């Protein structure tokens, strides 16, 4: 089985991820925008690459099936019939391709939106949110593709790399909910929920030790890279275009503070509890919720430290974060959202398994 298409999709999502961080940094540090900037190009070509790779796979599976070869669910998941059965698409590639197609469609809507309202860098405008969801769909598709190939080393490696991409991307989407005026911080809640859910889902799907830790390490590496890349790229591009940087810059990449930096700690807790539960034979009905709640509390509290150290600048606990109510509410938020995340993570893992059963590929 050739890992190239799956990795092409992954590369596309990585490009989109780096592109969006670069773009947001550009808006904050430099400012003026047209539709045709390099960050936009990176963002769009990332989606185009993922979309084209997915399309190629759909067509290949279709033509293979026409030629009489049965589709292999390990290639991108169970084949799904589309358009009256004319095309047969592996589920993962279908989702990734749909995401990429939606991205291009909503890109047009975004262009129109900017022609009407101008190029204010509002992250949570309707077309932007639709674009982020579309990119997330492509990332979900790549996770499905790699999960289907979990019997192969490249599938496992891809899953461990693909899940952090999705985690890195969630703050962009959850940011849109902050305008609703919810009693809780939507970005914090989203970070806690998605980080725990996706890490746990990866661990349960692969059923190996140290998967959660590996995902957390990759997540940390991506953060380190973007922490360096996005300001650097914005500066270099500004130099290239001949535009000055703005005054009064904070110096923190704008999207990174919302992504858990201490995920490794949470992953250790998750890994430990999961191992304990497995050894003791705890019920699968509630172990994921327990693990999730524990992980959620750790992430939630670590976010408290992270936010205050980044924004306050002084000490690990600054500003109002020191208050007891903040800590209590964060613990409660971590518990509930973590438990929910654990509940869903186990079930998503089941779905990923069912998507490419093939005797669970254990023997291969």
């Amino acid at each position, binding site marked *: 089985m050739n890992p190239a298409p799956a990795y092409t999709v992954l590369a596309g999502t990585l490009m989109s991820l780096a592109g969006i961080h670069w773009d947001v940094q550009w808006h904050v540090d430099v400012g003026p925008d047209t539709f045709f900037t390099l960050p936009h190009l990176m963002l769009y070509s990332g989606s185009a690459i993922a979309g084209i790779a997915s399309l190629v796979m759909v067509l290949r599976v279709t033509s293979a099936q026409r030629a009489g070869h049965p589709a292999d669910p390990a290639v991108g998941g169970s084949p799904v019939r589309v*358009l*009256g*059965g*004319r095309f047969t698409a592996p589920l993962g590639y279908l989702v990734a391709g749909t995401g990429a197609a939606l991205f291009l469609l909503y890109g047009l809507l975004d262009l*129109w939106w900017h022609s009407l309202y101008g190029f204010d860098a509002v992250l949570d405008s309707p077309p932007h949110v639709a674009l982020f969801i579309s990119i997330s769909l492509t990332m979900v598709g790549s996770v499905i593709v790699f999960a289907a190939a979990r019997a192969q080393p490249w599938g496992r490696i891809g899953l461990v790399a693909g899940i952090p991409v999705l985690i890195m991307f969630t703050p962009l989407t959850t940011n849109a909910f902050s305008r609703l005026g919810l009693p809780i911080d939507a970005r914090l809640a989203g970070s806690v929920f998605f980080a725990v859910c996706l890490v746990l889902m990866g661990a349960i799907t692969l059923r190996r030790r140290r998967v959660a830790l590996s995902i957390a390490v990759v997540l940390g590496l991506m953060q380190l890279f973007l922490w360096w890349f996005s300001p650097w790229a914005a500066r270099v591009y500004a130099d290239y275009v*001949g*535009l*000055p940087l703005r005054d009064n810059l904070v110096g923190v990449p704008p999207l990174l503070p919302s992504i858990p930096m201490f995920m490794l700690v949470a992953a250790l807790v998750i890994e430990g509890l999961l191992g304990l539960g497995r050894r003791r034979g705890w019920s699968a009905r509630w172990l994921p919720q327990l693990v999730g709640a524990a992980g959620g509390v750790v992430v939630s509290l670590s976010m408290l430290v992270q936010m205050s150290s980044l924004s306050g600048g002084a000490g690990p606990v600054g500003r109002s974060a020191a208050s007891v109510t903040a800590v209590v509410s964060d613990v409660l938020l971590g518990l509930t959202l973590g438990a929910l995340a654990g509940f869903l993570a186990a079930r998503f893992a089941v779905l990923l398994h069912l998507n490419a059963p093939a005797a669970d590929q254990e023997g291969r």
Partner: protein
Amino acid sequence: MNAPSAARRLGAVLAILLSTLGLLMPPVAEADSAAVGDLHVAQTLGGRELTVILRRVTGVPGPLHVDVITHKGTAAGRLDLAVVPTGVSTSASAASVSGTTVDTAAVALSGRPGTCSAVLDVTRAGPWELSLSDGNRTATIPFIVPKQLTSPPETAVYLGFSGAGVLLLVTLLVAVRARRGWWTLVPGGALVACLAVAVTGALLSSRLPPPPSQGGQVDATIDGVDDPYAYSGQRIGDYSRPPGTLLLSSSTTRAGEVADVRLALSDASTGLPLDDVVVHDGALLHLLVVGPSGQLWHLHPIRTGAGVFEVPLSLPEGGHYAVSAEFARRGGGVQQLRSATGIDAVPATGRTTTGSRPEVAARTTAGDLQVGAGARTVADVQVRLSASSLVAGQAAVLSARVGDTATLQPWLGMLGHLIVVGPLAPEAAVGTATQNAQVWAHSHSMGAMPDRTHDTSGTDGTAHAPGMGPHSPSPGLDPDMPGMGGLTSVNGDSTADETVAAYGPDICFVHTFPAPGYYRIWIQAERGYTVLTVPYLLHVTGTVEKRP
């Protein structure tokens, strides 16, 4: 998967796609239509010289934002604004409120020069009138509330492409489901036809002439503004109308007293009231009056009735005053009408009353002028004029530097105005000489000459205001661009209004004097919310001998 469920699914996909298209299309079409820009109208309302700006209306029903700009010396007070729809329609319901006041607003003038704003609600597209009242006088300004439109070719493009998209899916469905392959040709053919329609529309849309402008070229109606394509009528190339006739209410007045001058415009063909004046150069009507000792008034009488304009005028001294009016009729073309009579002011008996003289922005006394360009100081602002090639029949370049800083304000949409009368005897009473002068010209300046070869020397050109103007160097921009930025409208965007004190200080006029002799000229520019009027007397020599 069995056939019915596949068909159902396809149907669902189709429905989603259709609804998406339906949702997408109208806004796209809306964004394509060019909006109409702001309307700037100068009004001499009683003693106040105001600029009324009707900002473009982007949707109906919607807000009409009105800015009233006051000048130095404008008295504080209150203005009452009202909007009245005036159009006719074949639909009784659309025209049911025509002639009645739909919304009112009050504007408090602070007495400090600047902007006062009001927002009025306009309920539908079509011809409207804005009335301004200061309690004694009421000015009416006709304007058009436009509608966002899609031209028929654009509609064909959108419909064609949407149809093609839908038929693509239908073709696919038929190709998959139909037992006989040739059935596919039916939707396939329709798909090709749709594409042909769309491509034809796309190719045509830029070529087809736009319909005549409602209110600009033809009389506007509600129906016409709603759908100018349907009501475009016969396509004729020429919409122009006959010249007008200018009647002054009285040709004599008493010096030192405020008298309302009433101008009646009538059609030179039919003699009917000329009531189709459109806003041109920032006013409905520009009234120029030249007094016995070289005073110039450049006023903007208010419209008080069909073809009737009024302005209060206080003539300071006895003698003859020459009068001309500039305006544009619907259908195109600017006309300049010179009153055949002018106004004769009889000297005031006994005392000279100056107490109740209205403040007038654009007035000056010339006194005795030296011949030629040079420096003058008007209202504490030094103006330096240099003139080159003052030869009849050759383009003369008049460069003026008004003050030292780039703080000129656009007045009537221009940076500078030049009024020229002549040839005349330099020592004659100016009013009478102007009345009989062959040339009465009016030209505009949009800034300095790009090459700056005609700059006045001996002044420090570095003293620009801190960065307000288009002159300030911006990274990556050409700093030598002449100061046109913001003065010309692109796609109906707003142009700079009088609050933007960022232009100049150099303004340049190019004018060809047709005959040799002495000319009186006045240069007008706005600075510090004051319109400066600077008189000069120039001597234009005869054509240079070709062979010495």
